[in-house]
């Protein structure tokens, strides 16, 4: 089987080259993060730093004097975690409830309403952002608060997840639900004790994707938040660039990269913990950010 061996080696070579290309920007980020300023701006860029300055992480995260607008790490971390957790709870509860209603209760309005909900899914976020901005800021007075970042998830805002869970709930055999009903279980009881536990894989997909999307979301906080103490990590990172543009050195790339690494790490950790749900979620539904 000389031919098979040849194909295998050829594939390996291509995969390794591809991986190097894919990994190159990450590698420069890692190496820049531990260089000192002199080496960052040295004439010839180096891949492996001459000295390792791990204290860069300390200055980037906790030293407020390094930039005109420091990377507000601790408050931003707190805000990101709060908003993400609230969104996960909100999406899992509200989307599953709405989806269960659509999947299990028949009425004349069922179909037109479902199509209406799906058509919202087609709207580009920028189209939605302006009316929601007017609603939240003018009518509810939520400018510079964290509410716009998590309250919508409690009202079934994520139509994609409703659609996904709807397909799941439809596959639960009605005999199971009927049996519970005959045994005197209330409708909400059936939902919480039978439908929800049976759809655990789908709910995990909803949770994991909500985590990634909320953690990575930059646009919504950009629109609503002005107070540095209310920044999320993504917004804080961008403001860190803005703050450095006026300073004597220009941007302190090593500190910026250190902050960058800290923002990325939780995503990588979640990916390795919940790898199964990513692969399932993407290949089942074709979900994209």
């Amino acid at each position: 089987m000389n031919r098979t061996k040849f194909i295998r080696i050829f594939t390996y070579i291509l995969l390794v080259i591809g991986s190097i290309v894919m990994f190159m920007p990450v590698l420069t980020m890692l190496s820049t993060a531990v260089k000192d300023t002199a080496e960052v701006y040295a004439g010839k860029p180096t891949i492996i730093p001459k000295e390792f300055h791990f204290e860069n992480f300390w200055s980037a995260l906790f030293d407020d004097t390094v930039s005109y607008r420091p990377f507000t790490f601790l408050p931003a971390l707190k805000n990101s975690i709060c908003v993400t957790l609230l969104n996960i709870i909100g999406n899992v509860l509200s989307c599953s409830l709405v989806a269960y209603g659509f999947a299990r209760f028949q009425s004349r309005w069922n179909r037109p309403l479902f199509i209406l909900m799906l058509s919202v899914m087609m709207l580009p976020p920028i189209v939605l952002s302006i009316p929601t901005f007017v609603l939240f800021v003018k009518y509810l007075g939520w400018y510079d608060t964290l509410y716009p970042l998590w309250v919508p998830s409690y009202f079934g805002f994520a139509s994609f997840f409703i659609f996904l869970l709807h397909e799941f709930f439809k596959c639960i055999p009605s005999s199971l639900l009927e049996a519970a009903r005959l045994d005197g279980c209330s409708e909400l009881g059936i939902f919480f004790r039978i439908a929800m536990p049976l759809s655990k894989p789908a709910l995990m997909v909803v949770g994991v994707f909500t985590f990634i999307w909320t953690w990575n979301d930059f646009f919504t906080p950009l629109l609503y938040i002005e107070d540095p103490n209310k920044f999320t990590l993504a917004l804080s990172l961008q403001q860190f660039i803005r703050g450095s543009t006026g300073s004597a050195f220009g941007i302190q790339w090593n500190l910026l990269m250190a902050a960058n690494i800290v923002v990325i790490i939780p995503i990588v950790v979640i990916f390795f913990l919940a790898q199964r749900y990513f692969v399932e979620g993407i290949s089942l539904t074709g979900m994209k950010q």
Partner: protein
Amino acid sequence: MEPNFFHTIKVTVLFTVITVPISLIVALAAALLLNVKAIKGISIFRTIFFLPALIPVVASTIMWSWVFSPKHGILNLLYAKIFGTQGPNWLEDPRLALGCIAVICIWGFGNTMMIFLAGLQGVPQNLLDAARIDGATWWERFRNVTVPYISPVIFFNMVMGIIGAFQVFTQAFIFTDFNGTTVTVNSKAVHFYVLNIYQQAFENGRFGLACALAWILLVVILMMTLIQFYFKKRWVFYNE
């Protein structure tokens, strides 16, 4: 007439035309490589190829802008090693700046690749084997067996890719933040349609105008999608 309207449309369409085909080809090629049987450590490669898709756009843009940095970036280090001269100023050049954002977007092809991989697993092995026994070359097998079977997946990725490319925003927004530093960006060359909507609404306070622009975008995306659905029956094959 909104003065930026036609310019931003031109930039956005050009970006879509560059990015979508290349990222489809790259993602499909990666999926084909990862689908080769009996390769050890496949999950490591899959992780490396997939992870960029999860990195926050703010973070990946910062990462790449340093790569593109004319004096200190690794790209121009390689350029100097290969060609012996100082490389171009990637982000300041009106023609290259758009390509740089395209590179960042293509780099995050992980989602598309995963969908292709799922599609490739549905290609019947016995048909591929039969074609091989009949003496079909690799390209003939790919063209006449694999492509028809994954054509619905190609269609899906194309539709989603075009919808996504029309809405690119964050990369250009972050890039323009770098102006006035060691990395300067040609902001006109990356003036995307959605960036213009953002600037009109949230920087100039012209919500009405921005809303109208957003609805035009919706109509354009809808029309692009409908056109693709119209031509779908010519090339998409459903095994039913």
